[in-house]
């Protein structure tokens, strides 16, 4: 069949496909079609709602990871900060009897504090991000264990649980939260001086510094953003689990980094996009759910996901500079 779009539309479509994200978007669509064909149950409304909610938790964390990776940094502490913030919010509600809104704010502030420590160590003490956030990974998790003695906090108020169970237009609240945060992140990275400078630091930190830009302050803010987003995800995840558990978020830093890398974010810094990260998170989520639907033994899921991550990285390396 001959496709005959007007020239302008043709150019638009062509530009879409030239975009870096086009390849992974195509991969995602193929995955959805293949899984949906073999196991139609995957495409049912209930399943898609569940999957999209699960994806939104990773997406929120991965957005924060994107900000720091764009500067050539990394945040290994996001998983622990999720657990820490969820625990803080739950304690404020159950232990102190605070209203939901105040408790959520308290949880986010608790998470931001950890991000501020990360940021200070990296920006001013000049500890490499890998080491500083590795320390924070243990520090935040250790604090949770120490304060709770490993006991989960349960009995969360019903109002709090709507953060995860509530729906709007048939879509779960966490999805809306992730969508809103993704849009804000996109606007910040694309249309503000702060975003431009974030990319510039990743592209050439020295040049950015010599251009009179306060690189240290930006780095500090970025690690706070990363922790803040992880906190939001952790708090909403506690609502989903109906309890704050010490192990909530454990290992999620790897999912977040994987989502960013699958989405085309360069670990060397300077390139990556919100759209890519969202698609990357979707690929991870669809794969997890799809494998379950296809009846693949859960014991094999991890190694299959590993293969997908390495494939995505290979694709990224091979298509670069072409």
């Amino acid at each position, binding site marked *: 069949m001959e496709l005959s779009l007007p020239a302008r539309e043709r150019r638009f479509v062509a530009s879409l496909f030239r975009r870096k994200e086009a390849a992974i978007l195509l991969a995602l669509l193929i995955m959805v079609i293949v899984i949906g064909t073999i196991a139609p149950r995957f495409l049912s409304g209930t399943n898609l709602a569940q999957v999209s909610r699960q994806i939104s938790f990773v997406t929120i964390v991965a957005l924060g990871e994107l900000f720091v990776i764009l500067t050539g940094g990394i945040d290994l502490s996001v998983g622990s900060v999720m657990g820490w913030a969820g625990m803080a919010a739950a304690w404020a509600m159950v232990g102190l009897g605070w209203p939901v809104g105040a408790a959520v704010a308290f949880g986010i502030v608790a998470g931001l504090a950890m991000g501020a420590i990360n940021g200070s160590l990296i920006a001013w003490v000049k500890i490499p991000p890998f080491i500083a956030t590795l320390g924070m990974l243990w520090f935040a998790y250790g604090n949770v264990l120490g304060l709770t003695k490993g006991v989960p906090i349960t009995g969360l108020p019903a109002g709090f649980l709507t953060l995860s169970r509530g729906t709007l237009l048939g879509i779960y609240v966490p999805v809306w939260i992730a969508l809103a945060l993704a849009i804000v992140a996109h606007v910040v990275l694309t249309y*503000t*001086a702060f975003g*431009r400078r974030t*990319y510039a630091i990743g592209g*050439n930190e020295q040049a950015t510094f*010599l251009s009179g830009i306060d690189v240290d302050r930006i780095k500090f803010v970025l690690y706070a953003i990363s922790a803040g987003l992880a906190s939001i995800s952790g708090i909403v995840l506690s609502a989903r689990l109906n309890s704050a558990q010490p192990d909530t978020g454990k290992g999620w830093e790897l999912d977040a980094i994987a989502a960013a890398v699958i989405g085309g974010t360069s670990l060397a810094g300077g390139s990556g996009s919100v759209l890519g990260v969202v698609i990357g998170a979707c690929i991870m989520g669809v794969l997890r759910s799809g494998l379950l639907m296809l009846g693949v033994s859960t014991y094999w899921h991890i190694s299959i996901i590993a293969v997908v991550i390495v494939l995505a990285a290979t694709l990224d390396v091979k298509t670069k500079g072409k």
Partner: protein
Amino acid sequence: MPALLRMTGVVKSFPGVRALDRVDFSVAPGEVVGLLGENGAGKSTLMKVLAGVYRADAGELVWEGRPAAFRSIQEAQRAGVSLIFQELNNCPNLKPVDNLFLGREVHGRSGLLDYPAMRRRAREVFERLDIEVDLDVEVRRFSTAVQQMIEIGKALLSNVKLLVMDEPTSSLTDKETDRLFRVIRELKANGTSVVFISHKLAEVFQITDRIVVLRDGRNAGELESARGTVDQLISLMVGRELGSFAMERRAVAPGAEVLRVEGLSGGAVQDVSFTLRRSEILGVAGLIGSGRTEMARLLVGADRKARGRVFLEGREVRLRSPRDAVAAGFGFVPEDRKVQALVLRMTVRENLTLAVHGAVKRLRAFLSRRKENALTDEFVRALRIKLASREQAVNDLSGGNQQKVVIARWLAARPRILVLDEPTRGIDVAAKAEVHRIVAELADRGVAILLISSELPEILALSDRVLVMHEGRAKAVLEKAEASQETIMSAALKASA
């Protein structure tokens, strides 16, 4: 004498550009051939085709009388071709011996590295090159000149027959250049051929036997070095006669004092004081390692100073970071544009507006694309930056145009004081002349300029006064009338006595 290398009809295209168009190039054994041309003329591409980095689309390569086509640098090296690039290709974290023998390590009977043997051979090589090298120090601690000698040493170890040097003297002092030339002459005496790529025309005549000029990817002509003149060479390079190499006439005399620096110290810099006036160009001369760049970095707050006071229009200012300096009205063009100034994968627009986000904002935080575009277009026009589009990655521009983008970034910030560190390093003759014109115009418009340069003719042509530095100290300030190559060199050298 049969040629060592004969390349005929070499064609190489990249998307959108024909980089080499039927180029012929040959080198006889023991011959030193200069390869010249403006940036983008095809010199580096030709050498990369020779060394197997690129494969030619068409053309013939005959090496020692036999047709050949090297498929990789390694293969070219085995045949006897060694390249020394503008950017040194060494491992700065390793010691000289490790660098010399990288890829051809000497093993003992045990199968482990035989360091005593390698050190012995390393000493022989360095003796031949007439340099003293501490074998127990990491390479990064050596000056560029010594690092370059280590690279040449690497070539010597591999029984080089043809040594290609791309801009080897661009960061060398005159003395270091002399030593390099002694080495080249010794190589030549031993039958090794050399291809010498440089923008310093006087040097090219001094060291080469023959000069091949490329222009827009084609052979533009050839000169016998003994008989040709600089003017002939320039006209071959640019394709037209330049009136002369004459420098900018300045219209406006220096005005009131803008900047006073007292006792600036820190790192290698000790107790440097000077003043700078409106519309004045203060040249800063000195050998590599004399502390010129370090002084500039202390001044603009890029490095922390130990002592010293800075007065701006009579009032003391504290510049703790480039941010403070920019806010106070400084602009700083650092010495290495790719490493220190440009975000290479960003666009021309993004690079140009990097220091002036305040001027292209709307609603406080957002960048206005319209304002960015307008500002970019204004300076692209004013500085005659050649580009396909302002959305082009700055990496794709030629060296001269990249340098103009860096300068434009600071012009957009409308500085009162502009610090230029080696603003014309590694850019071609025409671009150099344009940068000179821009600098002179800026001074005429009232900007006070601190011009650091290793090229004395540049300093002499542009400066109202010349500050001579040596070993971190300001040794002399020469007025325009008394400044000459001789007085500057003697001020710098007397200091070391």
